[in-house]
């Protein structure tokens, strides 16, 4: 496929454009090969839908959606790519509320998020507002706890050296 190089946005150009939408975002390229944005949970859905729908950014491909337990905070990392412009960006959202962590779903923006968010719910206990079918995906309904959290304990099944 021929990619029109002029449509490719540098990280600097991306940062300038995205800041003009939502000024409160934090940007960093430290310790990562991509441009990273940290977004406040209340701005998540607005940012994501603009990243997808804006013709200059056009991030139409959500290629990875991961839950992470940073110890104090729980969060989700979204890896986005544009199939037309071929630029890549990483969006992170975090919360310190470990009892009831909740973010807005992006499954109405990218269909693939429906399954990926269910996986995150299953293993991290992170809930997603407006998700069409939020329930356990791999584990059984009566499973206690969320195994990929750092404070999860299972003395029988986990072998720690």
């Amino acid at each position, binding site marked *: *496929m021929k990619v029109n190089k002029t449509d490719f946005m540098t990280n600097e150009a991306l940062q300038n454009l995205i800041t003009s939408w939502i000024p409160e975002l934090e940007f960093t390229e*430290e*310790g*990562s*090969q*991509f441009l*990273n944005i940290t977004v406040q949970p209340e701005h998540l859905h607005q940012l994501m839908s603009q990243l997808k729908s804006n013709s200059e950014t056009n991030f*139409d*491909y*959500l*290629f*990875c959606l*991961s839950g*992470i*337990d940073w110890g104090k905070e729980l969060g989700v*990392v979204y*890896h986005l790519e544009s*199939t037309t412009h*071929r630029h890549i960006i*990483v969006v992170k959202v975090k919360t310190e509320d470990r009892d009831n962590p909740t973010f807005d779903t992006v499954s109405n923006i*990218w*269909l*693939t998020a*429906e*399954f*990926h968010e269910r*996986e995150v719910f299953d293993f991290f206990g992170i809930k997603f507002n407006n998700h069409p079918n939020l329930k356990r*995906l*791999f*584990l*059984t309904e009566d499973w206690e706890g969320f*195994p*990929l959290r750092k404070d999860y304990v299972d003395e029988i099944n*986990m072998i*720690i*050296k």
Partner: protein
Amino acid sequence: MDTSIANSNLKSEEYFINMGPQHPATHGVLRLLLTIDGEIIKKVEPDLGYIHRSIEKMCERDSYQQIVHLTDRMDYLSSHINNEAVCLTVENALQLEIPDRVKVIRTIIGELTRIASHTLWWGVMGMDVGALTTYFYGFRDRELINDIFEETCGARLTMNYNIPGGLMFDIHPNFVKRVKDFIAHFKTKLPEYDTLLSGNVIFQKRTKGVGILTKEDAISFGASGPVGRGSGYSCDVRKHHPYSALDKVSFKEILRTEGDTFARYQVRVDEMWESMSIIEQLIDNIPEGEYKVATNAVIKLPKGEFYQKVETARGELGVYVVSTGTKNPYRVKFRSPGFSNLSLLNHITVGGKIGDLVATMATLDIVVPDIDR
């Protein structure tokens, strides 16, 4: 003839039926909960987790060398490429200069892996739609590749040939000749695949116009590999983010625009020709040199995040490593192609007949351990 029954307004109602987890066409322990009305599918809901081993959690306690071996057990038909993905992540993070010899050998074996996976898929695809002969044809040719792997890597399926820094050992002296012999053999056999199955009228009637996925939906569902390319979506990681020696070879990205079951089928068959072409370009030009570079016995990645994509036989595999600078990763996420490809199954089969589900699912080429990581 009594037509009163046919003309009376017969009421139909939806009911549930289980497909799997021990169903031959689900290719592993996948359970589908089907909602059907007569023969028409109303909903397909996958129920996963029957063989989930939580590889991502295991990675958090293992060293980087150990993680490589866990990835074999995800998509076991692309084991070499899975290993390569982890090794590339580690090598890029450490900024290791990998010898050209390693890159070329990795690419050759990667493409052999792709052919082996596609021949197996082709055999099983035929079997799923009732053509048992294809199974034996596919396994006959795949066996020759497994013999090559056995000689060079020491294993036929879960090869563990890649290590961070290079390869476990150098190629076997017979490797080049055997690969060339295989290519010569397979070039005469691959046309048989087309005459036996692709050109078969019954097969075409069962697959053409069935299970249609549009390009827009393919991107939104995160489809990759032949599933995406069957819908005209250019998603070949080997083209867009080349790794190892793939930037040195020329090959076509097979695209078809129909988006139906037959298109996904044909993409895989045509891809085998391209993989052979890649191997032919490299097999006579394996550079001399070391087959690995030394790494520390204990590998510690610098603090930060690392992402690597590769194209397995099923599509885009992503390895996302978060490191805090210790000998174990803080978090590893495997973005597996099968997981995203399975998520669109409901979308493309609803409204179709239950008999078409098996054919459609066969062209998604699902390997369940890849989904239940």
